[in-house]
């Protein structure tokens, strides 16, 4: 095999599959193909792929829901905190949802975890409104 030159190599490549192809009954193939073309197209079950952006939306919704439940546990009296951002969530685009999640992360990591904001019951209505607005943006 060693020493095969380019010409021999190309010759070899050109001959690949020739023997198998010679065995093909072309007329029988033509008849079979035409016969099958006459038959109605099978109604194959279509696989519906879930678009990646909808997967992201579903994941964002799950995270928001989980966050809402967590906030409910932190502050059972402030149930509106968990429900408020979910009201119009169906209208948000994936990028808006991502932005909202980022804001929520920042709020949880910053405001809610430090001592001064740990107790939401102590917030005044005005402070609560400010907090909710910050979740919206």
């Amino acid at each position, binding site marked *: *095999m060693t020493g095969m030159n380019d010409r021999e190599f190309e010759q070899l*490549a050109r001959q690949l*599959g020739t023997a198998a192809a010679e065995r093909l009954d*072309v007329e029988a193939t033509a008849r079979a193909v*035409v016969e*099958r073309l006459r038959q109605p197209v099978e109604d194959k079950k279509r696989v519906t792929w879930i678009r990646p952006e909808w997967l992201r939306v579903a994941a964002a919704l799950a995270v928001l829901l989980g966050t809402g439940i967590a906030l409910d546990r932190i502050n059972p009296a402030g149930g509106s905190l968990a429900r408020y951002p979910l009201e119009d969530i169906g209208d948000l685009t994936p990028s808006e949802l991502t932005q909202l999640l980022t804001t929520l992360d920042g709020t949880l990591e910053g405001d809610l975890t430090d001592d001064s904001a740990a107790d939401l019951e102590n917030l005044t209505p005005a402070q609560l409104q400010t907090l909710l607005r910050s979740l919206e943006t």
Partner: protein
Amino acid sequence: MPQPDSLAASPDDAALIAAWRQGDEQAATELVRRHARALARFLAAAGAVAADLDDLVQEALIRAFRGVASFRGQCQFRTWLMTIGANVMKDAARRAKRQQVLPLQDSLPARDGDPHEDAVANEAAQRLQIGLAKLPRLQREVFLLRAQQGLEYEEIAAALDTTPGAARVHYHHAVKRLKEFLK
């Protein structure tokens, strides 16, 4: 330099395709006569199991005729047919893998059990075919379209939706790897 196969003139194919689109079965029959053997050769070289070759050829032709509306004439009908054949083969391999019905031995390109042909089969050709099976799909297809079918890089690129430069690179990588495999 590979020599082109004797391809039917494009206008004739185009006329037959147009006739088939009007429902002319004779046109479909003629297209099968012209291209079925070349398609079979391509599929066999690409690693089709001999026992499956008829079915693969038929399936590729059926898909081509049913999807002919998507053929925009970007390449020759035969070249387009071969890309469909490669997809059919890929689907068949995936199904076979999922069903796990083919023993490993049968998954190699078969020589159909003819003792005489087995005896005279060229060892280099067999090794080349095994080497081809190890190539990435795109390299294998580019190699076969170029070396076996004798197509120009522009034609190959149009069929495989790539650039002539990329096709050239794939071809040279394939040749290099196959030659190493044959050493």
